[in-house]
């Protein structure tokens, strides 16, 4: 993982696309080093043969069936699909709680760095997976488009995520620990090219500050 990429993503979360004031930058470096030396991202994934019928994706040898037009579109050329769950774990969660009491400004920076860290980690992991499983589509997570959050607990169950990496979902389908990502990634035989999908299907497309500036949020970063 490159620090530069992590910092770039983190700064964009903090509302800047360039270097900020001296005190903030110092704090960013201290906290990034803290994260690098203490956080172990954990992940678990499995690969499933899938079949799609009328916007319903069935995962072979499992109880999982998902109805989602947007996910079906993404996976339309994928005979197989990776389901992946990743988390930065409890340590980060406790650190965020610590900062929420002790220093909200530090907490803001730490939160942005942690979010960037897990994004970059997954981007790197994506590149690794791409070597073994050409060709991968983009990552698509519950909450995107019409892929409902309700699928989280089923997905976590399938991967034994609670046991393997300590990742759970609340009754409102919120992932805990918070700095966590679950995603579907299609494996297709030809290179994946359709990049329009994400912004068009996002609920915030009309109010998104980044989109107004012609930028993308972290979800699109792994697009070449």
């Amino acid at each position, binding site marked *: 993982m490159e620090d530069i990429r992590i910092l770039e993503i983190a700064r964009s979360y903090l509302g800047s696309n360039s270097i900020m004031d001296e005190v903030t930058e110092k704090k960013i470096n201290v906290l990034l080093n803290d994260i690098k030396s203490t956080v172990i991202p954990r992940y678990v994934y499995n690969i499933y043969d899938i079949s799609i019928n009328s916007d319903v994706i069935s995962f072979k040898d499992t109880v999982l069936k998902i109805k989602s037009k947007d996910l079906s579109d993404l996976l339309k050329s994928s005979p197989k699909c990776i389901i992946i769950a990743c988390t930065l774990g409890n340590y980060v969660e406790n650190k965020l709680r610590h900062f929420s009491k002790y220093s909200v400004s530090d907490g*803001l920076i730490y939160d942005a760095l942690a979010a960037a860290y897990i994004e970059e980690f997954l981007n790197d992991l994506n590149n690794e997976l791409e070597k073994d499983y050409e060709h991968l589509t983009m990552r698509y997570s519950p909450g995107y488009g019409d892929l409902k959050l309700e699928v989280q607990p089923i997905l976590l169950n399938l991967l034994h995520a609670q046991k*393997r990496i300590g990742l759970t979902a609340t009754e409102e389908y919120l992932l805990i620990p918070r700095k966590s990502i679950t995603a579907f990634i299609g494996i297709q035989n030809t290179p994946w090219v359709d990049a329009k999908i994400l912004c068009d299907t996002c609920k*915030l497309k009309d109010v998104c500050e980044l989109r107004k500036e012609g930028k993308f949020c972290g979800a699109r970063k792994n697009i070449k």
Partner: protein
Amino acid sequence: MELEKILNKKVIVFDGAMGTMIQREGLVGGEIPDLYNVENPEIVKKIQKEYVDAGADIITTNTFGSNSFKLNETPYSVDTVISAAVNIIKEIRKDQLIALGLSSTGKLLEPIGSLTFEDAYNTFKEQVIAGVNAGADIILLETFSDLQETRAAILACKENSSVPVFCTMTFQDNGRTLTGTDPKTFVNVVQDLGIDVLGVNCSLGPKEIAPIVEEILEYSLLPVMVQPNAGLPVLENNETVFKLTKEEYVDQLKPLMEKGIAVVGSCCGSDPSFTKLIKKTFGRQIVKQRNVKRRTVACSSTESVFMDKRIKIIGERINPTGKKKIKQALIENKFDYIINEAIDQINSGADILDVNVGLPSIDEKTVMLNVLKELDGVINAPLQIDSSNIEVLEAACRSYNGKTIINSVNGKKEIMDLVFPIAKKYGASLVALTLDEEGIPTTCEKRVEIAEKIIKEAKKHGIAEERLLIDNLVLTASAQQEGVIETLKSIGKIKNKYNIRTTLGASNVSFGLPNRHMLNKTFLVMALTYGLDAPITDPTTLDIVDHIKSFEVLNYLDVESTEYIAYMDSRQIDNYSNNKLFTKSKDIKNIIVNGLKDEIEEVTINLLEKEEPLFLVDNYIIPSLDEVGNLYNDGKIYLPQLIRSAETVKKSFDLIKIKINESGLSNLKSNKIIIATVKGDIHDIGKNIVKVILENYGYDVIDLGKDVPIDVIIDNIKKYDIKLVGLSALMTTTVVNMQETICKIKEEKLDCKILVGGAVLTPEYAETINADFYCKDARETAEVANNFFK
């Protein structure tokens, strides 16, 4: 098999994996294997018969997920699935014991998750009763990764059955569980909870698990159990497989077994052929006995603090006696201040923190439980529970996530009879005051006598002397000068006679004399020289820690003075960097705009000596805030700096408020605003930023926290007669709870307006849900509030 006859004498063999075995029989991904007990019992029976034939001494029920949460969506009750599981084994066992296999609820407990300790306990209780009623001989708690959940499960076992309890947690390759518990802390916490066997299972193969097991063997006074996986998981052909052969497995286990393992089995990826070879190789071998050192220790869930040769500092600041700000914080339920005191003490060098929330005007039990919960995970140091109320002690010990120290028990029979059972049940250590029915003794000899009485009585309750910290009580030098040395002598005497640790509150002695700090420091060093192990003191007081560090050099504890040198070096750096910034900017506006939190207090104090507080606010603070706001709007500074400025202003305000109150000016009556993140949502950074900004503008912000139930919001609106409420939500699924909250508020016809914000919100949606105001960020919130209260 008669367990008591064999346990810890000859090696006992458990069965192997069930989950992976059922997968081979066609279990589909996402299906619950436990349901096979009811829907396909022949398959379960077949597998377990193979384990019986392979020679297993104990067979585990197929009930890894048989709790009310996981079975919720199925047509079966916990009792149905568990009794079916037990009965299957009953049909095929010969002299094997049946182990009720229980594991995690699958949910994270408070404060990180939302599952309460009580709800977790009740889930386990339900399972325990079902299993024991059906005929289980022992209970196996396995594959737990969270210490608090483990505690709930153990208590559920101990309070609802009398069968032996075996408890294994699962550790990752970094040597900790997923929620951060290391092996020795696990051992220290659970081994005094009345269980019979402890150990580790799953996640790792025998080779990787070895260092974890070795640490457990070093600390555990109980027999140790291991059930590793058949190696590390590997993804092969869309399937997760474990690659060790049974021969490799047994080979890798051999060196561990020789170190004293009493119970052995196998976990994921294993099968009856593994069990057969394990039984052949290790079954009924003599268990190597270990000589385990007896240690005095206190634990959080992530850290063990041992009272060994080194001095351990117990921080005393969290105590309302004589501390106005703490009193205020406790009365108003504003725990942030207390959390900050805790963090400051840790940063100053405290190893353990004493927590006392005893105030007549509050519900001590509820407040204590809330403070403990807030501190859990935010600091890593163990906590010492300080209360004279038995109910509070019991409730606190029950829910404390670790091994606490009870402050205190003493030599009075009545007190010992009440407190020792609590310490015994929850595995707590205790501070023991050497006073009895006759009061505080005057002589060294009497103190030693009482200490002996306490030690003897503790033993009767099954509490060994290493769980006691003797506090010989020092009175004031002003009233009983000749008594001071008696206290010190008794420390030495007791430590000579018994292998026991001592503690002492070192600040009492100076009461009533000038320059208390000088007397306290001197007394501290004298006490340390007599053998004091754990002074209860204020580590944030100038040079208390310096004295302790110096003592450790001179008493040859800090070998080659490495720690002392590093400590003194780091203090130099702090001073230097503070000075550097200070010489650059003394101007208060500059300090606020740049968010220099470390410099604001000195400058504010200086200004308050020259000017009236309100003059300061109007002529320095407000203009600076306006400047910061403008710079931010113009894109010249960014959010982190904005918030840091706000925090800097807050620090200044805290001092200004004190001055205003002292000078008897009419209390700045501030408008109250409630803020909360709605039920189901735990995102709170935005809300916290709003809080800091609103406080800058003088509002009294009542922060109800996150995941706040609707009725809590309603109750607080009524309680404080609130006119403005701010709600935050960051998920599409929780924003509906916002709507519900607003509905309820309007239903109750409360005279109160609602302001909403959060990433997923839009002005249109805010209108749809009947909110009165929509704010896109913290500054807009402040503007709206300012206009509202005009």
